[in-house]
């Protein structure tokens, strides 16, 4: 059964995810060594929307993705991608949240940035993988 609210959350989340990808990776592709200026403002502005939509979306899909290990409708690969994506979100979010405080020294701050960067790449690869398998499945 189609759940319009779940579909809306899913669509908005996907838009915010691509917003995060564009504002996060395009400046680096363009040759900047880090995020600053308008790219940073956009990235930080989209981040809370992205994370809360992800959390709501995850709750909508948790049962379908087999959180109770019963009646799991989705394919195994979809479930794996779904849970791994959520798992990667934790270091991605916490690394940048911790770096917003003065709790850690410079070396740890650099490690946090690396963790944020690589877990972000991991999340992007998982979404690409998801769409690739989705297309192959339809094809």
């Amino acid at each position, binding site marked *: 059964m189609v759940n319009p609210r779940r579909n809306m959350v899913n669509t908005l989340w996907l838009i915010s995810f691509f917003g995060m990808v564009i504002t996060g990776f395009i400046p680096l592709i363009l040759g900047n060594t880090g995020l600053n200026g308008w790219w940073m403002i956009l990235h930080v502005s989209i981040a*809370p929307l992205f*994370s809360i939509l*992800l959390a709501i979306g995850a709750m909508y899909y948790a049962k379908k993705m087999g*959180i*109770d*290990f019963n009646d799991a409708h989705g394919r195994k690969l979809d479930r794996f991608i779904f849970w791994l994506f959520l798992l990667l*979100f934790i270091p991605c979010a916490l690394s940048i*949240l911790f770096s917003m405080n003065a709790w850690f020294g410079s070396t740890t701050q650099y490690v946090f940035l690396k963790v944020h960067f690589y877990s972000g790449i991991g999340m992007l690869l998982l979404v690409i993988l998801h769409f690739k398998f989705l297309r192959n499945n339809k094809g």
Partner: protein
Amino acid sequence: MKKDSYELIVKKVLSTVSFKKNNSWPIINENIILNILTSFESQTSESTPVYVSGGKVYARNSNGLSTSYHPITDPYTWPIGHNVRPATMSLGSGGCTDCHSADSPFYTGIITVDSPLKTDDAMMVDFHSQNLFAAQVFSNAFIFRPWLKGIIYSSVFLILSLLALLFINGLGKWIDSTELDES
């Protein structure tokens, strides 16, 4: 060229220049620099006289005065204290707004070149490879920073709860499948 020769030349030219009321450097213009350099060149010398000020080297050429960059003009970067300061004086020790506030000197501080030559002032943001408006918009957004953290921490908590639930359910399923309690 003897030392007293160029001292005489400089003194002669500068004698016409009045000092500022606050006894700071007198303002000398490019014509005065050109006069001094021309006078130097008229003396016997093995090298080309130049004037160094405000990060530039001024030399005389056929069109008058030319400016160029030379590493020797770089700012002095070994200040008193050998770059060592108490942690309480470091930027950021007072929180994010040490730098990220609309009027923070980190972005809006004016840098005046201490030199007799009239030079334009620079603003700190000029050295940050970004524009002042973007920096100030970002700084003003810091009033929403606690909301940003709150929303993302809540999302992390919800997702961690789901992952914990998945782990517990998985563990339960595994225990069921191994039938540990029946052995």
